[in-house]
């Protein structure tokens, strides 16, 4: 390690003080007793409790083979560095005090944003060390095999949810009695929607009341419009609350798609609205109806504009791309073969492979849909204001329909990308970057020992993990290989690649399953040449 990674001494080595302390055999055995989870002959192993795979090779020397698979799910303030400077001080500090939960890594991320995000951080480190201890002094031969797979996905809750507003903090204690209200207010997205909906609703009632008192048709019809907005917001609110619900038998994959669905619905609604606006505009242009009561219209639309601008401010902040989708893939070193402890000498083989996939944005379609809706309303108010002003100056009745047509086109175009992106997710389409990896991963299934072939691989994105996949695959096992072992091998392999699959194993030659039909269908056209 020291040889290959010339690290500045100023690096934050948190574990440096524990370095090289395992040369005392007494404490070593003591440590082994404390670990005692597996009875290994003479192995030191740094056993991360959450690590799923342990690879124990029998070795005479100290032969470590770590395979960490962390899956952190933080939800509190972090100081992370997205510049990725990992300093792995692999200096074997098998911390006697607390043998578990100990990594020799020092991820010092100093990206300055110290905000609060729902962080799903998944590392998977695998180290292999081999020590040979001589009576005095020691020399270490490290063979590292780091495989980091970071995937940060910051969603929505950027910075603000920890510091709730004063208003929220004051009313939050009172809502404990109503669990629904509390759960709405506790989450940032739903809270925003809720506040804006309340504002909208209150404004609607005031408007309707004044409209009724003053007998003003404009006010009344605008309050009807506001009511529809409230309904749309209510649907969004429902989606935001539902999305937090757990998986169940009825919904085996949880409610992660609810928000996408609501976003899709909102997008479609906007498209329909824009079509309707355009229709009505043409009708008005055709019939040449004069817009009446300009002053009243002006006041109403200005008030609407103010409300919507407030909404834009509340939701717009979210919209400006606060959804990062980092996924870095470092892979230092190829697999070292520590068959037995005789491995010595520096055999480092580093292989940096950074794969920054900022492509697939995992942002919240629900919020986007609501934002677009408010945007559309704002544009509508603006168009009414502008057209009333123009009409009062020039007196041509065509201004209003013209402005409406223009706005309708704008709304339609802005809703389009939302509809497409949410449709793609609802269709369970695998995004391009993931698809590329998936192809390689699938090819790897065939290389597992005992596997003859596989069929009907169906994989789709998990809504909870950032780049994780769920799915099924049917694996045909060679005669002579144990079904169970092969299944475990494939399962482990897929899990390592971030796929949680249901694997059905079948014996070669058994065509009883429905997947055999698919095989018969797909096999003939496989005569394609490689080149």
């Amino acid at each position, binding site marked *: 390690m020291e040889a290959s990674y010339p690290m*500045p001494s100023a690096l934050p080595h948190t574990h440096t003080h524990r370095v090289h302390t395992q040369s005392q055999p007494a404490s070593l055995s003591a440590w082994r007793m404390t670990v005692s989870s597996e009875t290994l002959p003479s192995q030191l192993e740094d056993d991360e409790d959450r690590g799923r795979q342990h690879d124990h090779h029998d070795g005479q020397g100290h032969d470590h083979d770590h395979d960490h698979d962390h899956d952190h799910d933080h939800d509190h303030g972090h100081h992370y560095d997205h*510049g990725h*400077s990992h300093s792995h001080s692999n200096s074997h500090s098998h911390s006697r005090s607390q043998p578990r939960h100990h990594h020799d890594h020092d991820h010092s991320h100093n990206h300055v944003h110290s905000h609060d995000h729902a962080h799903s951080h998944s590392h998977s480190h695998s180290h292999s060390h081999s020590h040979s201890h001589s009576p005095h002094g020691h020399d270490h031969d490290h063979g590292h095999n780091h495989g980091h797979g970071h995937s940060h996905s910051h969603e929505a809750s950027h910075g603000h949810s920890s510091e709730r507003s004063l208003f929220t903090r004051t009313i939050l204690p009172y809502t404990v009695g109503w669990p629904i209200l509390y759960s709405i207010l506790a989450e940032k997205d739903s809270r925003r929607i809720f506040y804006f909906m309340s504002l909208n609703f209150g404004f609607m009632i005031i408007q309707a009341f004044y409209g009724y008192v003053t007998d003003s048709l404009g006010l009344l019809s605008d309050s009807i419009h506001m009511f529809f907005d409230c309904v749309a917001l209510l649907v969004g609110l429902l989606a935001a609350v539902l999305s937090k619900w757990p998986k169940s038998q009825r919904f085996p994959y949880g409610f992660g*798609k609810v928000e996408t669905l609501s976003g899709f619905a909102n997008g479609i609604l906007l498209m329909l609205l824009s079509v309707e606006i355009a229709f009505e505009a043409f009708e008005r242009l055709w019939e040449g109806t004069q817009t009446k009561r300009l002053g009243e219209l002006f006041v109403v639309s200005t008030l609407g504009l103010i409300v919507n601008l407030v909404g834009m401010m509340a939701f717009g902040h979210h919209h400006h791309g606060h959804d990062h989708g980092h996924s870095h893939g470092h892979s230092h070193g190829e697999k070292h073969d520590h068959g037995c402890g005789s491995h010595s000498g520096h055999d480092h*083989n580093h292989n940096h492979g950074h794969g920054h996939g900022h492509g697939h944005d995992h942002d919240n379609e629900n919020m986007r849909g609501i934002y677009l809706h408010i945007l559309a309303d704002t544009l509508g108010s603006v168009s009414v204001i502008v057209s009333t002003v123009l009409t009062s100056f020039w007196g041509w009745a065509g201004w209003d329909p013209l402005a409406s047509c223009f706005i309708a086109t704008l709304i339609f175009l802005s809703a389009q990308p939302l509809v497409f992106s949410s449709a793609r997710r609802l269709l369970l389409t695998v995004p391009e970057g993931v698809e590329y990896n998936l192809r390689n991963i699938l090819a790897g299934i065939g290389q597992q020992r005992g596997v003859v072939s596989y069929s*009907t691989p169906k994989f789709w994105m998990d809504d909870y993990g950032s780049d994780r996949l769920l799915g099924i695959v049917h694996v045909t096992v060679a005669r002579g290989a144990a079904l169970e072992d092969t299944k475990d091998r494939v399962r482990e392999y897929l899990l390592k690649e971030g796929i949680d699959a*249901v694997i059905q*194993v079948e014996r070669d030659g058994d065509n*009883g399953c429905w997947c055999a039909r698919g095989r018969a269908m797909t096999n003939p056209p496989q005569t394609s040449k490689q080149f």
Partner: protein
Amino acid sequence: MAATEAESLHNGGQAAAAPNPFNFQTQVISTAPVKSQNVGQRRGHRYKHSSVSAQHQIFQEPPPRPPPVLPASLPTPTLKEAWRSLQRDQRMRLYWGLCHVAIAMYIFYRSGGSLAAMALSHLVFFDAGSAAVCVVVDVLGNFEVWRRSSIRHPFGLERAEILAGFAMSIFLLFGGFDLLSHNLKHILESVGDHEAGHEHGDHGHDDERVALGLVSAAAIASTLVSAYGLRNHARIAKVMRVSYLATLPSILSNPFHFFTLFFSALISLLPLLSISLYAWLDRLICAVISLAMFSLGMRVAVAQGLMLLMSYGGNRGDVGVTAVLREIESESGIARVDGAQFWQVHYGLCMANLKLIITNGYDELALVKLRNRISALIQNRLGEGYGNGGNVRWEVTMETTIDAGI
């Protein structure tokens, strides 16, 4: 600081790395044609099959891999390809779909004074829309990308039909709301100033009478043609299962057709009534239609939304699944069910992914039999009977683990 650290990491990596496979030095590419005598010293790109490469083994064969089971992605047809793939009867259906849309437009524009006719036009629009979806689904069925799964689209594109249905249900909801608001505005107007309201209802009652007759006749005809010719709404209605209409004869048992036919028949009767009754009944029918649209849209949206959320809402839904799971658990040899996911992919396909823990000492042959038994059980219980026409296929995947505990 972070930068230097990262850099050092890189440098460290490169120092020990295998020789870089890429050559980043700039190279001068001569524009002169390659002469045949200096074959051995050719610069620039080398081709795998050229004699130079063959001699020097520059290119290494990739490790042999079996051909992929699934294509990565299948080509999505363009409009032109779709048009070319049309068969004769499909072309006829396409023309009819366009006709249906045209009829809907006609009804919309002729509905002029009557709110009820306008409401009817919304219903016909919905019919026309789903007829168009039917046609498009039919045409896309010509292509592989629709049915066959690829890595890109694990279930083909068939789920798009659900998505389109969901969009149509949004249209229904929107239409219902829209009509309600129109109705409300009309009422407000007529309450607000009486002159305006009367002006609207009075002009040319004779003209309107003919128009309404025509409108309802067109609506009925188009609905019938679509119902028989395109099997419009057939699949959606199956998912929804409106029980109180199920006893009605063939077409009427479908709620969509039922509503359209019923309301157009009602509207054709409207002109026979006196003017004052007509005005009120007009509004009433409009309100009823909008409410019907709203409730229907709600049901469609829920039915399709469940599918889009990867849930199973079909045959008795959750209760059915629970019963089946209990039955599976009671099978001999099964210690417990570790995880079960039942969900509907699209109209014709459901998936059941089970993780079963098998008691120790179960041999392979018995396992195969068990698997077949469970598949049959799920298909029989949850798949629709074969009598009902298009039945739902269940694709069952079972991961069996031998119980290690006992």
